[in-house]
């Protein structure tokens, strides 16, 4: 079976969506001839033309605002935000316009827009290129927020997101872009693919549950492998951050009694806080220890040469797992 990189999987997913629905458009900075700074849209403008793969002026609010107008006109825009830290100029258009349009129009206007954001750190970048803005969007009613963690999910989830009649913030773990997976794209049937808004157990275990999403899923899996023989870790890939799908997490915690939530974003009011609160409400009598979080610190994202210290890694995950056994 062929090895496919995350980049190729996303590219193929976009291509498939564009082939299937001529209303699907791509918009963003440098996504045409260049194929995007990460080459996710490589070759798409050549094959689908400048009318469907639109190199936009350099203004993120403009990308989102005009995408909203095009969606009103019946198009299904997929907007690329070049880096996580550049999404903020579009913040009003996303949270006040895009997110609320269906609600305030009492369902008369649908907003089938996907906002692709390469997110997270670990690539040695300068500031504003390594951020994890998911909580801002998950906090906003009307948006759906997903994070893919592997090429296979990237391929199916991007297509499912494009088919959604709701706006989807689509987070791509940029540090995993060049990683490969065994994947036969032709064999994938979207109709039977794993649903977009469901979390998934990616490794079974009975001792402690570790929940992660996006780039941290791989870290969690590596931690689980490293702990084999000592700790029997179950890993859940959250996949959908809004709406959350915590039923598998509740079932897991009822089995293990222990939960560690891992993400790169700062811990304060992050996704881990919400997961911890809900698990506490639902699984209070199953918990053997408080829910622990392993996250980025409540600081601005630091300079690249200390980002290894800032980012959760295998050791910090295992340290937290150990601490759940000390209560």
């Amino acid at each position: 079976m062929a090895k496919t990189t995350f980049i190729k999987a996303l590219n193929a997913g976009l291509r498939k969506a564009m082939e299937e629905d001529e209303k699907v458009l791509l918009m963003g900075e440098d996504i045409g001839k260049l194929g995007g700074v990460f080459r996710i849209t490589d070759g798409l403008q050549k094959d689908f033309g400048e009318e469907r793969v639109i190199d936009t002026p350099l203004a993120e609010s403009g990308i989102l605002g005009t995408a909203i107008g095009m969606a009103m006109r019946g198009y299904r825009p997929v907007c690329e935000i070049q880096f996580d830290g550049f999404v903020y100029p579009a913040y009003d258009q996303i949270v006040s316009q895009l997110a609320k349009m269906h609600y305030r129009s009492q369902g008369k206007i649908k907003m089938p827009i996907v906002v692709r954001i390469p997110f997270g750190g670990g690539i040695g970048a300068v500031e504003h290129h390594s951020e994890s803005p998911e909580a801002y969007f998950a906090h906003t009613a009307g948006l759906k927020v997903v994070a893919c963690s592997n090429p296979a999910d990237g391929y199916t989830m991007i297509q499912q997101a494009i088919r959604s009649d709701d706006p989807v913030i689509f987070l791509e773990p940029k540090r995993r872009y060049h990683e490969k997976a065994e994947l036969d794209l032709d064999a994938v049937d979207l109709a039977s693919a794993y649903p977009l808004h469901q979390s998934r157990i990616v490794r079974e275990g009975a001792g402690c549950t570790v929940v992660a999403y996006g780039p941290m899923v791989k870290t969690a899996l590596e931690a689980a492998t490293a702990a084999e023989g000592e700790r029997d870790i179950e890993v859940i890939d959250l996949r959908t951050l809004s709406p959350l799908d915590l039923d598998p997490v509740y079932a897991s915690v009822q089995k293990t009694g222990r939960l560690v939530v891992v993400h790169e974003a700062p811990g304060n009011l992050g996704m881990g806080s919400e997961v911890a609160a809900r698990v506490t409400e639902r699984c209070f009598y199953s918990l053997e220890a408080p829910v622990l979080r392993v996250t980025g610190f409540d600081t601005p994202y630091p300079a690249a040469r200390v980002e290894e210290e800032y980012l959760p890694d295998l050791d910090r995950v295992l340290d937290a797992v150990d601490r759940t056994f000390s209560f």
Partner: protein
Amino acid sequence: MSMGDRALTTGADDGGPEFVQLLTPEGERVEHPEYSVDLTDDEYRGLYKDLVMVRRIDAEATALQRQGELGIWASLLGQEAAQIGSGRAMRPQDMAFPTYREHGVGYCRGVDPLRPLGLFRGVDQGAWDPREHNFHLYTIVIGAQCLHATGYAMGVTKDGKVGTDDGEAVIAYLGDGATSQGDVNEAFIWASVFAAPVVFFCQNNQYAISEPLERQTRIPLYKRAHGFGFPGVRVDGNDVLATLAVTRKALDDARMGQGPSFIEAYTYRMGAHTTSDDPTRYRIASEVEAWKHKDPIARVHSFLIKQQLGDAAFFESVEAEADELAARLRAGCLSMPEPQPLSIFDHVYADGSAEIDEQRASFGAYLESFADAHPGGGH
């Protein structure tokens, strides 16, 4: 601010030499080398009636707010001609993106004047179908709709609906304050480089709440368009004929594939920004008095009389019809159904959400618990 500075931004108190006018404040028809209208007698009378009707709608809504029936109202008083002229310039297939003050444009688009009251009464957030009327919902965040209009116009081009006389055009409404917004400037750039069929219709009513035009610009607003690469024109916004002529040409140019343009409708907000505002704190009475002499309705009234297009019976019938509409608005406003508590959860997502469904069920059960405790009484 010296008078010199004021002249820089406004040209002159009367709007400056480039200002397009077809009907003077005294009701005299004047010619303009580029713009003209050729209306039937009925069309002249129709415009007069439109102006009176929307002023009456506005007066009734203001009264309803003063009586506590609306939470707030954004009055269009003084801007009737800008709204009716531009609204009547649109063809049925054209699409409008309003701010929150375009009650007159909505009227032209066939939106029941009762509908916008729902937003200001707090029973909904926009209750008309934008596609039915080609009139989008109000946008309250200043200038955000200019990008929506531009994207929509880009879609019009993609659909192949420009370049012919039956093509479609888009009009984005904005105010003078909005011209400082990033979104508006981005919309200008997008519209320009993609040659989008969109007309930016700026009602320069001289104030952004309390801030005068001088706080937004050092040059007349219409001159900014040139820098973005499309035409800009200043029109007497209190002249319904000039506004109609200028907007009609801009929309026709757009539908024929000539790209975007900018219209500065030079007018004055006679009332407060909204009913929560107190304009006496930031502008002088003599300025308001001066603008009263440029009233958009009085000049059409004078014109109709001079041209013998309207007699006493006509004017009385218009007033009677306006009063009738006002009475219907009042009754309709007072009898608007209160939104049901559980409607909070409706339409958050097109594809639904189990989380929201759970919150709806949970809150519903909570409300029900009071019904059980006090049978028949509710809570």
